[in-house]
């Protein structure tokens, strides 16, 4: 069976036995030896507050590493000290990543063609900072699938959380935005230069437009849900049979009639 190795970082605990480690340096050694082919569980059972990733951290997930919060309550928080960096993580799950970086972005992607999955992953500035939390750098074409996940710059207003550096092409989908702080929370959270391009795909849990004043490249934004795919149960008496069965058809038929009632003029 070809499966990933499961290792656990449990900072603050003592007497750990592999594959559980309390020292971040051991985690880096093991992940490097596995070429990133690992599921790294963050267990904060022995630790109040955030798990502190040191300023010396230099972990490369090589496009394979998963980082998952596991304990004690199913979600874990990482605080990455300025200077520390975690690269090319494939999956982030039930995790909060917090930093106030200046020396370098604490999360970085530089593998061309990477597909990144996020589920219940939150990236949040802990304070005003000069560097972005997540940097995507050339040569890079990336696809990022964010489900129940969030980018927050409320502690660093206006600063992009993700920054596309150089001629990066990023496909970013954001869906199932439940239990989030604000419908406009993604405003201003993605930045990039004129050579970068961003293809945003949003479902109905996000507002139809996200403001990205810090992004100078080309943006394509698509709502992936359509009125044609939403069922509508009509009051049959209001409609000449057959009544519409989806929102698109219901609206189109009413619009046609309204235009007619409006003297054939378009609806204002």
């Amino acid at each position, binding site marked *: 069976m070809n499966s990933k190795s499961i290792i656990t970082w449990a900072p603050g605990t003592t007497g750990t036995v592999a594959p559980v480690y309390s020292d971040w340096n051991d985690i880096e050694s093991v992940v490097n030896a596995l070429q990133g082919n690992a599921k790294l569980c963050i267990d904060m059972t022995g630790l109040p507050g955030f798990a502190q990733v040191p300023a010396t951290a230099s972990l490369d997930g090589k496009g394979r590493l998963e980082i998952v919060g596991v304990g004690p309550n199913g979600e874990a928080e990482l605080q990455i000290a300025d200077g520390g960096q975690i690269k090319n993580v494939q999956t982030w799950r039930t995790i909060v990543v917090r930093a106030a970086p200046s020396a370098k972005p604490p999360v970085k992607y530089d593998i061309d063609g990477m597909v990144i999955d996020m589920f219940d992953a939150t990236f949040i500035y802990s304070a005003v900072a000069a560097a972005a939390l997540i940097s995507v750098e050339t040569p890079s074409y990336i*696809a990022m*699938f964010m489900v129940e996940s969030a980018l927050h710059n409320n502690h660093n207003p206006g600063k992009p959380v993700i920054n596309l550096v150089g001629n990066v092409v990023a*496909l970013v*989908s954001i*869906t199932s935005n439940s239990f989030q702080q604000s419908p406009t929370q993604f405003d201003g959270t993605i930045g990039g230069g004129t050579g970068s391009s961003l*293809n945003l*795909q949003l*479902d*109905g849990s996000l507002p139809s437009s996200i403001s990205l004043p810090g992004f100078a490249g080309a943006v394509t934004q698509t709502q*992936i*849900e*359509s*009125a*044609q*795919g*939403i*069922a*509508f*149960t*009509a*009051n049959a*008496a*209001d*409609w*000449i049979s057959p009544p519409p069965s*989806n*929102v698109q058809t*219901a*609206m189109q*038929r*009413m619009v*046609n*009639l*309204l235009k*007619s*009632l409006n003297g054939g003029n378009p609806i204002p």
Partner: protein
Amino acid sequence: MIFMGSPSSGAYLILLMTDSGLMNSHNPGAPVLVMGPNSVLLMSIATVMFPIPFDNTIAGPASASLELQLDSTQPPFPMGGFLGPVTTTFVSVANALGYTPGAPGNWVGPAPTFVQQALDRIAARVVTLGGGPIP
């Protein structure tokens, strides 16, 4: 090509596709998924990001049947090569879709909060204005 079902005994299969696609872009018109005789397939397609058309990617004989469950990211699509019965159900419904009126003053009393309510109220008013059911 994916073949589903046994020609002799048929098959009952469930296929749940999330963020997934069937592509015949390099083989236009050819089905990607072919169902066998007497096979029954329940197929759900959801959360289609970066959409790839499913047009004409499913085929099967008249004895095969297909029950499609689509969310609002995937509109119905043509299946010229599928000759059996197809039942299509939308799993996203208007009475679960929130609506925030852009102009609350357009509504008497509490404004609708769901698309279903908004459409029903508009339809009722249109019926009154039009003097009969909506064509």
